């Protein structure tokens, strides 16, 4: 039997905590785990685990830059830069120099609230999305310069999340318009096009899509929604996506009945477990169901953690470390760190 054991409850933010991001270069080779959190209190906090005690502490507060809610944060693959997206319509880029964080660039252009930010696998491109219905792609230039290379107009409502594919330069966006859109650079330089829309007509969600996540190999994706379902999608071949044409995504299965309020976050671990966090204050973990009936769900509930927080759970994120550690962020202003153990 598996158990999600609470390791620590982290306090410090003075408003709801919207999002979490683990530094991908931490948690192995003797480097302590580090993650960032962002909040309605207009700040970003950096949290680090003490290697000897295993306890977490806030090591930095990034403030006096954003003037409104900080909605999303994301580390560059090198772990040296942190991008933060805010309701103040800007995205800030922070550089970590010996533990001190300095805002080295501010990306402006969106008309209103920026909802999410994501780096591609190579750290050469950044994507942002906004209530203005657009997705912007920025090229990372030397000297912490960023240039907008494409503005993607396709969604009919505000865009909740952008996420790069883990191995290919293919971008995914999910929206209040109930759809997930797939964007690819079709041959010509910076000529980004919507190559697929996953919507209601092709087994998509029937209400706002809040988040998505990929498995480690990138051939499966899970999405979560206001419609109280999780949907798993698959693609034939990841390799064909660059150069050999686009391999479309198809609906694999729908998981329903596991949350009774909006599912705000979903994240797939390297071990193949995906976690969901919702407005019912609960966390659910799902795994591959090798014994599933033909035509039935291909994933089963591994465990459920009721009352994981006192209020809505906005973000669940698995750590990059050797042990399966999960962090969750909530409207209750706290972050919780959990360890998946067997008993």
């Amino acid at each position, binding site marked *: 039997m598996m158990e999600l054991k609470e390791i620590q409850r982290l306090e410090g933010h003075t408003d709801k905590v919207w999002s979490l991001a683990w530094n991908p270069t931490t948690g192995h080779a003797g480097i302590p785990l580090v993650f960032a959190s962002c909040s309605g209190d207009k700040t970003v906090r950096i949290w680090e685990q003490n290697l000897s005690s295993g306890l977490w502490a806030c090591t930095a507060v990034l403030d006096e830059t954003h003037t409104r809610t900080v909605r999303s944060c994301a580390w560059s693959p090198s772990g040296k830069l942190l991008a933060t997206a805010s309701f103040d319509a800007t995205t800030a880029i922070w550089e970590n120099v010996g533990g001190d964080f300095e805002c080295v660039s501010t990306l402006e252009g969106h008309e209103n609230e920026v909802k999410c930010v994501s780096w591609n696998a190579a750290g050469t491109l950044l994507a942002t999305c906004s209530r203005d219905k657009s997705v912007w792609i920025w090229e990372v230039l030397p000297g912490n310069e960023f240039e907008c290379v494409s503005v993607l107009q396709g969604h009919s409502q505000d865009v909740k999340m952008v996420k790069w594919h883990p191995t290919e330069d293919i971008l995914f966006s999910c929206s209040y318009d109930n759809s997930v859109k797939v964007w690819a650079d079709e041959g010509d330089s910076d000529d980004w096009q919507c190559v697929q829309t996953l919507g209601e007509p092709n087994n998509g969600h029937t209400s706002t899509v809040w988040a998505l996540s990929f498995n480690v190999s990138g051939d499966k994706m899970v999405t979560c929604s206001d419609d109280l379902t999780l949907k798993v999608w698959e693609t034939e071949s990841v390799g064909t996506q660059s150069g050999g044409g686009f391999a479309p995504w198809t609906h694999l299965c729908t998981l329903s009945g596991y949350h009774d309020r909006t599912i705000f976050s979903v994240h797939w671990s390297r071990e193949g477990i995906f976690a969901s966090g919702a407005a019912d204050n609960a966390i659910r973990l799902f795994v591959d169901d090798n014994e599933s009936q033909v035509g039935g769900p291909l994933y089963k509930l591994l465990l459920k953690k009721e009352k994981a927080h006192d209020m809505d759970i906005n973000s669940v994120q698995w750590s990059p470390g050797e042990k399966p550690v999960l962090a969750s962020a909530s*409207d209750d202003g706290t972050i919780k760190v959990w360890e998946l153990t067997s008993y």
Partner: protein
Amino acid sequence: MVTELINVNPIIYEKKERRAPSTPHDEYDVEPIDQQEDPEHPYSLEELKVITEEAVELDDQHNMVTFTPTVEHCSMATVIGLCLLNKQLNDKERVAAALENLNLLNMVDDCLAPSYD
């Protein structure tokens, strides 16, 4: 607090006659949107032609409500929209962003304040 009216003298239109609903009225019924009052005046949205029956389009998947503020660039449009659009109110992210607008927040507070008239 709004100190002066945006549209001091709006045009008032006649209400459309409708047959009474066949089902008995329930205390939990939602008020018809065209009967809701304008934020500035003691007139319904129908009387001000902010909402008309023709401006509501329905199909199997969507409800489309087109509303027309009584003046161009009406600062009350957001409030009217929030009153009409339930999905937006159910989106806590949009609500959180809207409530960071102090003018809107003050207006909502005024709307929710108890009336002693």
